C-alpha cells in the first residue's frame, strides 16, 4: 500500500466523517437513477430523518474509491455516525423492523411516507470538492 494522495478517497472519508447520516446513491434523492437507491431514499424520507446524499454517477472513481474504503461492492451505501450501516437490503430490513428508526433516533411510527425530500436532504458533489 502506498501513501499516495488520493483526493477522491479523502473527500469521501471527509464527507462520511462530517455527516452523521450520509447516503451514497445513484442519482439524487429527488431523482434516483436506480430502484435500489430509490427504495433506500424512500425509507429514510418516510422516517423524516435528515440525511446527506452523494450521487456516485458523475465520476466512476467515486464508486471505486467508496467500495475500496467501505469494503462493500454495491450501491447504495448508507453510513451512520461514520460506520457503514448497510445497502438497500439491510436498510429495508432494518426499516421494517424499526431498527433503522432506533439507530437514527427518530420515531418508528412515522407519519405517511412523504413526497418531498426530507428536511436537510442535500445532494453533495464529491467531484465539486476536488477542484
Amino acid at each position: 500500500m502506498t501513501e499516495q494522495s488520493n483526493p477522491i478517497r479523502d473527500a469521501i472519508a471527509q464527507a462520511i466523517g462530517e455527516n452523521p447520516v450520509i447516503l451514497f446513491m445513484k442519482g439524487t434523492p429527488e431523482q434516483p437513477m436506480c430502484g435500489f437507491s430509490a427504495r433506500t431514499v424512500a425509507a429514510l424520507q418516510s422516517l423524516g430523518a435528515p440525511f446527506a446524499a452523494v450521487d456516485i454517477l458523475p465520476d466512476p472513481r467515486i464508486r471505486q474509491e467508496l467500495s475500496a474504503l467501505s469494503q462493500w461492492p454495491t450501491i447504495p451505501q448508507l453510513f451512520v455516525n461514520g460506520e457503514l450501516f448497510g445497502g438497500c437490503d439491510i436498510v429495508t430490513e432494518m426499516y421494517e423492523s424499526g431498527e433503522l428508526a432506533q439507530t437514527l433516533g427518530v420515531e418508528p411510527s412515522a407519519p405517511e411516507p412523504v413526497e418531498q425530500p426530507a428536511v436537510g436532504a442535500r445532494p453533495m458533489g464529491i467531484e465539486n470538492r476536488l477542484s
Partner: protein
Amino acid sequence: MPTADDVKARIEATIPGATADVESPDNVHFNARVVADAFAGMSRIEQHRLVYSAFEGELGGEIHALQLKTEIP
C-alpha cells in the same frame, strides 16, 4: 452469464453448510435467501459481506444486483 443455479452453487461453496435459494428473472438481477449457521455472531453487514465474497469483482458487473436476505437456522 451466471444462472440462478450458478449463483446458488457459488454461495454454498463459499459458506460451508449454507443453503441458498436463488431466483433470477434475467440472469443479471438475482434474489437470494441464504440460511447458514456461519452467520451466528455476525452483524448483518458481516453476513452480507460473507455472501458477497463469493462474487469478487462481479457484483455491479456481470451480476448487476443481488438482493439478499440472510438468516441463521
